[in-house]
């Protein structure tokens, strides 16, 4: 559903990777792994159509992303940004409601459908109790969950998550991964997430994309791509593989 071909990832003054191509289909959960500065966030922004790419194409259901209006694109692709550079002065509920912008039908205020979607999203991340609180009063982890709730209220077909687990405690890390896993499997969404922890991908992701230093890219099924040798080369540090039942984990030595 979300496909890129021949993509060049670059930040001003530096090319990070060339010829990146893969397709995240409905029901798949992709992990994007790489060292700091390897282009993970740049890839997410390119896939979301938030930044122009020097070369290559991104297409959504076969049509180039650039041909869609902003509102149409936001109805199809939702992004969880790694950081937000602004304060929000309203309540948590008002913050989550902003996710409905591309779907809002009325000029003034939100419709009942929007309110319902926002409430359901807050319940899904366990923040329903804090709906009336000021967004600024939330802790870092609660803010991260509010951002996820906003994305759920947006209800796109493809989710692009840049470090969805940051600031979250262990319980909520698992809850968020289960939440997006269920969205992919049960509601046929495509999910692409940038992860930093080698612990989770082998357990929760169906596919993986590795961005190596020097711009080399490997991608494919998680079971084939996520091997000890590849991850050691990716992160440049020795790892051990732990098997527990059917699950595989990688941890630093």
């Amino acid at each position: 559903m979300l496909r890129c071909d021949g993509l060049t990832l670059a930040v001003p003054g530096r090319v990070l990777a060339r010829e990146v191509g893969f397709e995240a289909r409905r029901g798949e959960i992709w992990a994007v792994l790489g060292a700091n500065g390897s282009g993970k966030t740049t890839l997410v922004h390119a896939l979301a159509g938030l930044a122009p790419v020097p070369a290559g194409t991104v297409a959504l259901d076969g049509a180039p992303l650039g041909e869609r209006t902003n509102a149409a694109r936001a109805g199809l692709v939702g992004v969880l940004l790694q950081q937000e550079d602004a304060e929000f002065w309203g309540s948590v509920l008002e913050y989550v409601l902003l996710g409905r912008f591309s779907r809002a039908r009325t000029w003034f205020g939100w419709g009942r459908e929007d309110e319902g979607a926002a409430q359901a999203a807050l319940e899904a991340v366990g923040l329903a109790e804090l709906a009336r609180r000021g967004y600024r009063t939330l802790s870092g982890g609660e803010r991260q969950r509010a951002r996820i709730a906003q994305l759920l209220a947006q209800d796109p077909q493809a989710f692009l998550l840049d470090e969805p687990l940051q600031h979250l405690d262990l319980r909520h890390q698992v809850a968020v991964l289960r939440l997006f896993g269920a969205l992919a499997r049960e509601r046929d969404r495509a999910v692409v997430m940038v992860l930093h922890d080698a612990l989770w991908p082998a357990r929760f992701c169906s596919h993986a994309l590795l961005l190596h230093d020097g711009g080399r890219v490997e991608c494919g099924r998680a079971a084939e791509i996520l091997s000890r040798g590849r991850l050691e080369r990716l992160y440049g540090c020795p790892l051990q593989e732990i098997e527990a039942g059917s699950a595989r984990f990688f941890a630093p030595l």
Partner: protein
Amino acid sequence: MSRPVALLALFSFAAAAGLFIALVSGPFPISALLVLDSVLDPTPGLVHDVIWQLRAPRALAAFACGGLLALAGALLQALLRNALADPYILGVSSGAALGALLALVAGAGAVLMNAAAFAGAALAIAIVFGLSFRSGEWDVYRLLLTGVVLAAGFSALVSLTLVTAPHVQVKGMLFWLMGDLSYAGSPLSAWTVLIVAVAVAVAGAAGLDLLALGEVKARSLGLAVKPLQIAVFVTAAVATVAAVMLAGSVGFVGLMVPHAVRLMGVASYRWLLPLSVLLGGAFLTLADTAARTLAAPQQLPVGVLTAIIGVPVMLALLGRTRAAL
């Protein structure tokens, strides 16, 4: 009743009360009953003339000016994502001031002075917009800096004009610079601008809430960022020019009224914009009534009154809501 709705009712009442007080107050005594009578059933006569040819146009001009400034301030604070932005930050008023003062020095009449003020403001807007757009990459940071630098340049030229102008003209110039509604013309054009600007701004208010989160985030949520930014810039600039043409550079209203509304617990621009317009209009109407009655027959520049009345109110609001900040 939710808080914004309650504030809307309160501010609407304040606006009506402010306009009514402006009609009642003045050196020529007219009782409130007579004013009501004249409003409901206009019959020609001295009372009618005082109300409809002197006080009402000035009160309406003050209201429009306050509403325009508060709207422009709120819009620019959203556009530049800077809490210290006010309607004059992009050099519109200093451009207008330079034009007006040069016309004064040249001995021009009111019409020519207005034309010169308009030319100065338009020049400032054109330069700011042109320079920040020229690189092809629209950048709010560049827009802000260009405006501030240009405003500084115009201010320097204004000061130069002030110190080199003949003594008899300096007082009139100072009134213009501090903001003064004594010479305000017909408020009709300002009201037209106000109504159109409010309509445009409220239509884009949902987008402004998104813009407050940052441009990338706003785009990811489906906002066409650049068209909105340009629309907001143009609306704020036109509103500022309309206000400046009416009363010179009245300070404080454009910067502080939106913050006062925020301190009362309203964050969403859907409510913040109309509430700011009402509060700004009511506030400037009252301030102007004070400006023409406090030291009558001497008139005070209303820009001084806005600060003298507004500063303690703002400080009290800040103190009261410290916990919420």
